[in-house]
Structures are given as structure tokens and as C-alpha cells.
């Protein structure tokens, strides 16, 4: 994962609430076993039907509950592959938000009025370290979990970090706390 520091540039706007991951990347494209190349299928039906137009700018501003529905990480993959580096919205679905942070696509929560102002400004600068979105409309602060921010700023792989704690996992297993569940390998 590449490190994120400052994301700066033009803003694309998708002024809709409850945009679900089925719209972001429709099911027929989930059959691919690769991780790349999903960008051309982003919002496939909406774009092909002429319902929306989207420029591949660094920043996308959109409506509340963005990324609801299916846990498909193909949705953040498609947004990132299309060219977005940050998504700004009043709220995100939980799994989608986590999926974004795992691949280095920055989810930014601003209240609805500020989202609208950034959309109208047309250009913005997002500073991950300062936790600010700066545009002609002003400087807006956003919240992000400290450990998530640390990972994003340093482009760190979650698995690598966890494996530094392998001793704690070994100890947990050795304590017997992990022995209560079933053994799938024992199934006939």
C-alpha cells in the first residue's frame, strides 16, 4: 500500500445518498480473480445509461451512507483504479469504510453542509496528518482513528503489523482460549 500524505486536486461530485456497492461495481464484474482493472467498470450501469458523468479526479464528494450493502472490496478497488484517492461523504457504511482504509483509499467524513461546500468549491486539498480538507470554502477538520491514520501515512500493511504481535497470538492460542470452537478439518 502506498503512503498517503496530501491529496490535492479537482473534485468530482456524485450527489446521491445510499449509494450501494452493487452500483459502484455490479456483480458481473466480481467474477474476476484479479485485483486490478476494475476502474473501467465503476458505476457501470449509471455511466453507460448516461445517468451520471464522473471525471477521474483525485477527490470524490458524495452523499450519506456511501458504500452500503455487499462487503465486496471490488468497490474500493474500482474507485481507486478509476483515479480517486479520497472519498468525502457525510457517512459511510462500516465495511466499506474499513475496506477503503485497507487499500489506502482515504474515506473522509464531513457533515452534509461542508460536503456541499467542498463540492461547490470544485478543488480541494486534503491533509491526512493535519486531518483537514481545505478549499475555497474554508478549512474543515475531519476525524480518523489514530492507528488507521498511522497506517495510511506510512503505507503500512495490516498483516505485517499484526504479525509483529505473533507472540501475543501464540500466547492466546496456548492459553486454550482458542480451543473452544469446532475443528473444520475434523468434518467428514
Amino acid at each position, binding site marked *: 500500500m502506498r503512503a498517503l500524505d496530501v491529496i490535492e486536486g479537482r473534485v468530482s461530485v456524485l450527489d446521491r445518498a445510499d449509494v450501494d456497492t452493487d452500483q459502484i461495481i455490479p456483480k458481473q464484474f466480481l467474477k474476476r480473480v484479479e485485483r486490478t482493472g476494475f476502474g473501467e467498470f465503476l458505476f457501470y450501469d449509471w455511466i453507460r445509461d448516461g445517468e451520471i458523468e464522473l471525471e477521474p479526479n483525485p477527490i470524490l464528494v458524495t452523499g450519506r451512507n456511501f458504500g452500503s450493502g455487499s462487503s465486496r472490496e471490488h468497490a474500493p478497488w474500482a474507485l481507486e483504479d478509476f483515479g480517486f484517492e479520497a472519498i468525502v461523504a457525510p457517512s459511510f457504511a462500516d465495511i466499506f469504510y474499513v475496506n477503503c482504509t485497507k487499500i489506502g483509499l482515504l474515506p473522509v467524513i464531513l457533515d452534509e453542509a461542508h460536503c456541499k461546500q467542498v463540492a461547490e468549491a470544485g478543488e480541494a486539498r486534503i491533509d491526512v496528518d493535519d486531518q483537514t480538507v481545505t478549499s475555497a470554502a474554508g478549512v474543515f477538520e475531519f476525524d480518523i482513528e489514530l492507528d488507521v491514520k498511522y497506517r495510511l501515512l506510512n503505507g503500512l500493511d495490516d*498483516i505485517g503489523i499484526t504479525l509483529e504481535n505473533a507472540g501475543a497470538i501464540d500466547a492466546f492460542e496456548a492459553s486454550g482460549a482458542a480451543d473452544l470452537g469446532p475443528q473444520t478439518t475434523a468434518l467428514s
Partner: protein
Amino acid sequence: MPQTMFDKLWEAHEVTDGLIYVDLHLVHEVTSPQAFDGLRLSGRGVRRPDKTLATADHNTPTDGTMAARLIADQLSRVQVETLERNCEEFGIPIYSLGSDRQGIVHVIGPELGVTQPGMTIVCGDSHTSTHGAFGSLAFGIGTSEVEHVLATQCMVQKRPKTMRISYSGQLGEGVTPKDLILATIGRLGTGGMVGHAVEYAGPAIEELSMPGRMTICNMTIEGGGRAGMIAPDDTTFEWVRGREAAPEDFDAAVERWRQLPTDDGATFDQEVEIDAGSLSPMVTWGTTPGMVVEVADAVPDPDSMESPSDRESAERALAYMALQPGTPMTEIPLDRVFIGSCTNSRIEDLREAAAAVEGRKVAPSVHGMVVPGSQQVKKTAEAEGLDEVFRSAGFEWREAGCSMCLGMNPDILMEGERCASTSNRNFEGRQGKGGRTHLVSPKMAAAAAVEGHFVDIRDWS
């Protein structure tokens, strides 16, 4: 200090701050290939294949194709074959096509008894919340997290807030768990549970069978909830007893499981109360599960909505659904009926639907399809003669899989077709581009198939 069930589950699995041990990792073909690739690229293995179980469900044809190599759709075939190869390479048990244990991942877990109270369960699928019905903590995750769990048997997780929804009274005749959860989402909104682990409680929940509880927990994600759960009780224990993966010392396990329910006096971040007796059979009218009304109501008028963004969403939804405000829900004509999905494809669901259609015929204008949730459900249904009931009513009786819930296999709606579906999502294009989905209970779907339009199951005989 009194604890919630969630607190107990969380603390019993916290390896270090925010690192949660996973007791069972369920894997399917769609969200796993890139995770296995990631392991190979970084030279990592699967830490606990013995706590991992795979099946093929999302892509699988339901027309009787019996092996991955015979799937006609090349991309689907490659995906299922990739899963089979990955499981072989990493030593993960798999029930693929052709196995008599294959089925929807959220149906086979409970069926085999690998889903048990007190566990943490994850799967690269948002409907993993289903397993919370057993008093377990179950999360849907993305592919990066799938890779993380494969490599470490743990997940990095921010501690969610807690919410309890208490249902007083009891469900009326003809009102099902599906209606209860649809009504709840309608009330709280599709973002109403975001950031929360939700416990469903109260007398109306305690009365439910395990399949009913699974239907409710299953749709937690449609309300935005991180996890849904129900306290384990004798109903839960009796379900697990005797299943292949049930604990050997069952009494000791039950003793342990009895400690799980929320303590008296424990506090939740949010509490909601709903009178189950006031609920009706529900039908969705729009393009999110929260766009739902009672069957006796009419399509709502966006002009009556206060928030401009709700109004705009409703207008777009009605345009997509080709519905006029004020149309009674019972006058909406249907082209298709789908009975299946991880929400409503268990044997009890099929029994209820079969009871409604027995001796009747599917309306000539309707194409009806029944897709059992697993090979075992199919076998049981056939032993009970349910397949014959459905077939002689004019339904198609299919093989197990996710099928037309999301249409990754050939089971899809054609442009403009309108479907009564027992599945969980009525998103635009979910069941096929331009398809129009109305979510309902199995009984309501079956009755709608017979009449060719929705009916209030309470008045229908």
C-alpha cells in the same frame, strides 16, 4: 460490573487491544481469490486451516450442473476452480459443487453445527451477521481482511458501539421474522445501526425458532449494523445438539453458553423498543430495504417526505421501480417470484411457502423459482415432498446456491421484470439490470406467486 453479551464475546477474544481472535473463518469463491494471491505474493501461509471452511455458492448454477468444470460461464468456472485449487494448496476443507454439503455459506455453517454460541465468526460476505443468531459475534469483512484472517487468524477491529432492540408482545398471525426485520429497518433507516453491534431481545425474539432468528440477524447489515446477535437459549442448544460439529462434551458447552447472555443491568449505547404485536406483513417499494411499507398500505408519496434528500431518493426509486405514489401495494402486478437466499432458504422457509401454494397454481403471468439454501435443505425438502408441491404448483425447483439474490449465476431478472423476492436487497439492478425487486417473507412471496400480485397474507385463504 454487568456486561452485555457483546462485551463478553469481545473480551473473550481480544488478543491485544483491537485485535480479535477468529474461531471460524468461512470462505467462498468471490471474495477470496485475491486474498490467497496476496498470501502467495508475500510467502505467507494459512495459520489455522482447521478453523477455516470453504464452499462455493455465489457463482454456482442452480440448474443441476454438478461440478465446477461443467459450469458453462467461463468466468464463474474459473472462480470456483480457483477456490478449489486454493483450498487444496492451503489445506482448507471445502464443500464445492458436487458435495452433498455444498450450499450458501450462511446456511451450511449452522447446518453442520460449526456455528455455535460464544464464537467469533467472519466471512468475506456482509450477511455473515446471520451467525449472530446463535449468540456469536459474526462480522462480514472485505478481501484485505480475509487475507489478514487467513494469515493471522485474527482481525483488526475497532470496538463497535452496542445497541439493543427489544421487542415486546408477539408477532401476529401471518407476520414473520422477515417482516419484523424489514419493519425495524424501515423505522431506523438503512444507516440506523451503523457502527453498532445490535442485540435483538425481548419475548417476541425468544419465541422464535433458529431459522427465524437467523433471518433477523442476517438483515442487520441492511440497517447498517456491524453485527447482529441474539442470546443463546434452549432453542439454540437444541439446534446445535447432535449436529456433526457439535462439541463432544455437550453439557459442558451448554454450561459455558449459559453464561453468555447480557447481564441484568448492563447498559447499551443505544436502546430501542418496538411492539412486535403492532407489526404487519411488509413489502418494500423502493431501492433500499428501508423503503418499506405494510402490505395494506400504498406506495408512498415523495412529496409527503420532510427531508429533501429522502424526497429525492424516493423520487428516483419510484422512477426506477416504475411505481406511482398512492398505488395500493396489493395492486402491483408481478412477473417473477424468487424464494431463496441466505435470508429465507432454510427448510422452515420452504415449508411455509409450500403450505401456502399446496393445491394451488402459480399465476400464468408469473415465473416462480425456489432455490434451497443447501444440498441438505434440498434433500430434506424432497424427502418431505415439498419439491412436488412446488413443481405441481408451477414453480421451478432448483439446486442450492445464492442464485437470483444477486444474479452472479445465470438466474437473473430481465430488464423491467418485477419480482417478489425473499432475499435481502432491492438495490437497483441487484437481481439483474433494470430488474425491480420487492422484498417479502416466504409466505407473502408464495401467495403473491399464486395471485400474480401482492396479497395481505392475513386475509388470504
